[in-house]
């Protein structure tokens, strides 16, 4: 028994000695590594890094500015399609917006001229100014004429949709009504406006015209060139609907009847707005007549 214990003691002492030796060796290795890292490694690496930097500098110096430009040019040439794809959405939007702005200006100019032209007091001027308007301008204005794409009657606070008109059935009208109301509310809260509010939102070639009407508001999404005059006419047009359909207590408003009336109102907007169209047609006709006119004879 005593012998066994002695053997155990011996082995435990032996294990301890081995462990200590291991620890000493470990410490030595770490010490060596630290020294190598702090002193020896930089000595070895520095010349290699310096040489690499010199090589890079030399190669950069060899590449003149012209070479770089040539390389870029070549790269662009090789990937023209990718460049066009990348730039098209940005440039396209800019060009579209520019054309839209220019057309709006043009359209306003035409509106002004037409108003002058067709006043009873200046029939003579009308005839003469007729020839001051280019046929192309009239056709362009017609091509970009504003069209009601969507129409909404929305409850002010809740954003609940009461009536909706659409030309193409592509949107979720309830969610649009909700988000539009959120935007209106946001603007109202952000600028602490008790009276008035958001009257229009413009995005690309789309304009949303908003008309408040008591506990409701009307919003129409218009595509095309929206001039100041058109906006005013649209507000009048919406006011007309408001007077006929919404100027009564909430309980008296029949939802179904309101929906039908609103759709009809939006559909008839073309007739209302294009009184001007008739004017355009008159001018076009007259221009055509002008084409058959013998101007040489007229001069004599």
């Amino acid at each position, binding site marked *: 028994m005593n012998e066994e214990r002695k053997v155990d003691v011996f082995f435990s002492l032996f294990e301890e000695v081995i462990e200590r030796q291991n620890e000493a060796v470990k410490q030595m290795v770490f010490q060596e590594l630290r020294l190598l890292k702090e002193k020896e490694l930089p000595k070895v690496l520095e010349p290699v890094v310096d040489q690499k930097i010199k090589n890079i500098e030399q190669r950069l110096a060899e590449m003149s500015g012209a070479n770089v430009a040539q390389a870029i040019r070549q790269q662009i040439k090789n990937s023209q399609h990718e460049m066009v794809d990348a730039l098209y959405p940005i440039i396209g939007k800019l060009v579209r917006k520019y054309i839209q702005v220019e057309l709006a200006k043009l359209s306003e100019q035409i509106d002004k001229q037409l108003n002058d032209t067709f006043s009873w007091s200046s029939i003579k001027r009308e005839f003469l100014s007729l020839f001051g308007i280019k046929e192309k301008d009239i056709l362009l204005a017609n091509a970009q004429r504003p069209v009601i794409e969507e129409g909404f009657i929305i409850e002010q*606070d*809740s*954003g*609940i949709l009461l009536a909706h008109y659409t030309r193409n059935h592509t949107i979720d009208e*309830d969610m649009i009504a*909700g988000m539009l109301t*959120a935007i209106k*509310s*946001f603007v109202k*809260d952000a600028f602490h406006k008790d009276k008035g509010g958001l009257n229009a939102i413009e995005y690309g070639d789309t304009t949303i015209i908003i008309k408040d009407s008591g506990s409701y508001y009307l919003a129409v999404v218009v595509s095309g060139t929206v001039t100041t005059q058109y906006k005013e006419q649209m507000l009048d047009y919406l006011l007309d609907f408001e007077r006929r359909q919404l100027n009564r207590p909430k309980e008296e408003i029949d939802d179904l009847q309101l929906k039908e009336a609103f759709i009809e109102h939006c559909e008839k907007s073309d007739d209302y707005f294009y009184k001007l169209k008739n004017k355009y047609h008159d001018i076009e006709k007259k221009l055509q007549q002008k084409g058959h006119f013998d101007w040489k004879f007229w001069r004599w």
Partner: protein
Amino acid sequence: MTSKKNYSKKVILIGNFGVGKTSLVQRYVHSRFSEQYHTTLGVKVDRKVVEFDDCILNMMIWDVAGEVRQDKVPPSYYLGSKGVFYVFDMTRPSTYEHIEEDIAYVKNMLPDAVYMLIGNKKDLVEQSPVPCDFMTSAKTGENVEAMFRSMAQKLLEQDGKKINI
């Protein structure tokens, strides 16, 4: 065959940041608009049509971006709401410590609305630390449909309609 009558109601989800309001809505509806509206406008509107035997409720769900206190939310976002979900995170006491004050603040603006307390993240805890109407998990979907459907039912009942689920 008679066509079902349609109703539209606005409900709003409020509660602290990170309690899972948006996840609950995402579980319940298929969003069409970007979640980015939360950061830009502070609200995102979604729609869910809840169909009952004799009527249809068009529920407009306003998911308001999380704020530490409800008085930080633009007041006009609350207007017109018929139902309010107050969502809290059952694992974070800071999200349910001010329930009473927050609800009182909203009730001041919406005295007649239907209120529901929702303890979310049921997948992480067994019991709700405070009383609530529904314990939900946006992660597993547990009770999500039930909480919205229950709200729809209450909204219609408030209008005096008897609802058969």
